C-alpha cells in the first residue's frame, strides 16, 4: 500500500467532509446521511458479492443483528452506546460467519446461496417480530439522550461525519483487500472456483472470511441506524428492504469497485426522491422505479455508474489522442 493507492480515496472523502460546512439544510444532510448509510451497507455486500461473486439476498440478517444488538444492550442491559456499537458489529460478523459456514460448507452457490441467505434473514425477521427481547410487535425504542457519550448528537452534521467516517473506513478496508493476497484469492474464487482450488486456494475459507467481513460492515450500518433513528422493529431491522438496498447500491454503482456502493446509493436515493416528487409519495412506486433502473443498468451498463464513468473517460482520452 502506498500513497498512490490511498490518495484517490482521500480526495472524495475530504470533499464530502466539507459538505456540512456549506450546506445547513437538514433535509439535504438527512438525505446525505441515508445515502452514506446505504453506501456503507452496500459496501459490506460488495465485498462478498462484488469481489467474491457470492450474491446474498439476505444482508438484512447482518444489518438487523447489528441494529438489535446495539439497541437491546443499551435498553435492557444499560450498556453504554459505544461498546454496544462495537458489540453490534461483532454480533453481525458472527451471524455472517455462521450463515456462511452452513451454506458454503454445503456447497451452495449462485441462486441457491441467494435463496438460503434470504431464508435466514426472513427467519430472523419472524423471530424478532415475536421474541419478547426485541419488543416483539411494539419494537425497541432507545432513550433520547443527545450527548456524544451516548452516541447521539445534537446536530445532523455530527451524525453525517460519523457515517462518513464509517464509510471511509470501509473504503480503506476494501482498498487493503484489493491489494492483498486475500483479495486476489477472493476475486479468483469469483471468476472460477475450481481453477482457484487447483492453484491452492482454500475456497471455503476465503468465502467464509469474505462473508464475515461483509457482515461486519453491513452490521455497522445497522448499529448506526439504531443510533440515528432510535427506533427498531422487525420489519425495519430484518426487513427485505435493506437486503434489496444493500445489493442495489453496488450493482447500480459498479460491482467490485470501491466507490460503486457510494455512486449507486446516491443514484438510487436521488431517484427515490425524484419518484416521491413526481408521484406524490404513492406507496411502493419507488420500488417499481428501482426495479426499472436495475433492469436498465444490468442491460445497458453492466459495469454500473463506475463502469460508465471509466468508459466515458477512456472515450474522451481516445478522442483527445485521435
Amino acid at each position, binding site marked *: 500500500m502506498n500513497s498512490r493507492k490511498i490518495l484517490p480515496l482521500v480526495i472524495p472523502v475530504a470533499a464530502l467532509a466539507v459538505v456540512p460546512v456549506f450546506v445547513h439544510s437538514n433535509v439535504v444532510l438527512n438525505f446525505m446521511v441515508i445515502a452514506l448509510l446505504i453506501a456503507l451497507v452496500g459496501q459490506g455486500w460488495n465485498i462478498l458479492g462484488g469481489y467474491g461473486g457470492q450474491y446474498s439476498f439476505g444482508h438484512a440478517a447482518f444489518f438487523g443483528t447489528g441494529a438489535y444488538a446495539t439497541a437491546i444492550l443499551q435498553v435492557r442491559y444499560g450498556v453504554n452506546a459505544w461498546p454496544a456499537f462495537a458489540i453490534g458489529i461483532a454480533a453481525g460478523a458472527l451471524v455472517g460467519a455462521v450463515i456462511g459456514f452452513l451454506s458454503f460448507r454445503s456447497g451452495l452457490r449462485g441462486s441457491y446461496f441467494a435463496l438460503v441467505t434470504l431464508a435466514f434473514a426472513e427467519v430472523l425477521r419472524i423471530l424478532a417480530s415475536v421474541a419478547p427481547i426485541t419488543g416483539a410487535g411494539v419494537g425497541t425504542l432507545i432513550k433520547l439522550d443527545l450527548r456524544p457519550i451516548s452516541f447521539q448528537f445534537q446536530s445532523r452534521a455530527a451524525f453525517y461525519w460519523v457515517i462518513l467516517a464509517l464509510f471511509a473506513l470501509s473504503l480503506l478496508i476494501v482498498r487493503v483487500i484489493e491489494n492483498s493476497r486475500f483479495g486476489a484469492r477472493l476475486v479468483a474464487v469469483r471468476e472460477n472456483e475450481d481453477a*482457484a482450488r487447483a*492453484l*491452492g486456494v482454500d*475456497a471455503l475459507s476465503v468465502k467464509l472470511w469474505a462473508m464475515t467481513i461483509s457482515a461486519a460492515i453491513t452490521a455497522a450500518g445497522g448499529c448506526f441506524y439504531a443510533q440515528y433513528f432510535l427506533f427498531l422493529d422487525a420489519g425495519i431491522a430484518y426487513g427485505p428492504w435493506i437486503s434489496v438496498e444493500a445489493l442495489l447500491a453496488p450493482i447500480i454503482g459498479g460491482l467490485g469497485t470501491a466507490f460503486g456502493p457510494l455512486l449507486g446509493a446516491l443514484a438510487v436515493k436521488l431517484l427515490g426522491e425524484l419518484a416521491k416528487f413526481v408521484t406524490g409519495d404513492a406507496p411502493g412506486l419507488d420500488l417499481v422505479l428501482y426495479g426499472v433502473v436495475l433492469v436498465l443498468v444490468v442491460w445497458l451498463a453492466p459495469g454500473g455508474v463506475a463502469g460508465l464513468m471509466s468508459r466515458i473517460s477512456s472515450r474522451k482520452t481516445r478522442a483527445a489522442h485521435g
Partner: protein
Amino acid sequence: MAEALLAVANVSKRFGGLLAVDQACLSAEQGKITALIGPNGAGKTTLFALICGFLKPSSGQVTYRGEDITGRPPHRLASQGIVRTFQIVQPFAGLTVRENIAVGAHLHVASRAAALKAAERIAGEVGLGPMLDRPAGNLTVAARKRLELARALAAKPALLLLDEVLAGLTPSEIRDIVPVIRAIRDGGVTILMIEHVMQAVMNLSERIYVLAEGRIIAQGAPAEIAADPKVIEAYLGHDAANRLRGSAHVH
C-alpha cells in the same frame, strides 16, 4: 528404476452404475514425463481428478512422496506441490494475464507486489510476455493454453498434471509449446500428461500408460506402446486392428 514421486494403486471410481476408473495403477517417476493416453471417454480426466483431490476414489490409494494422500482436498495438495491444468481451459476471465498468473504465485508468496512480479517472469518463460495486461477472456485458444501452464507453474509444482494442453492447437503452435514443456521437465518438475497428440506424446514422454474403458491396458516405453496390438485395438476397434495385422502380414 528411479523413485516414483506419485503412485496410484488400484484406484477405482464409480458413478452410480458406471465404473469410470477400474483398478487403475500407475506411477510417475521423479524428474520424468509420463503420459496417459487412451480413447475418448476412457476415464483419463476422471483419473486426474482422483489424483488431484477434485474427486474422491471409491477405492484404492494415491501415494505422493511415500505419503497416502487419497481424498485430500485440491488446495492442500497444491501447497504440497501437486498442481493440475484443465482440459477445458479455466481462465479467470475478468482478470488480466498478469493477475491470473499471480493467483498461482500467491500460493508461496504473500506480498501482492512480489506475486505480480513473479507473474511477469513466468509469463516471459511461456511466451505470454507481450500479453500481460490483456484480459484473459480475450486471449486466443493457444494463449489460453499457455496461461493454464503459466498459472500452474507460478504455483511452483513438484508434480505437474497437464490435461491436454496441446489439444486444439495448430501444428505450428504445438511445435512452439513442446520445447516449453521439455524445459519445465528439465527444470526438475515431474510431469504427468494426458495427451491425444501422438507425435508430441512419442516425442516428449519417457513412459506411457494406456487407459481404455477405465482400465490400464498397457504401459511401457513409447516404442513398445506404438507396437502393442491391445493399444491399436483400443483405439481402432477389434476388426480394424485385425485387418491392420492382416495387411502387415501381406506386406
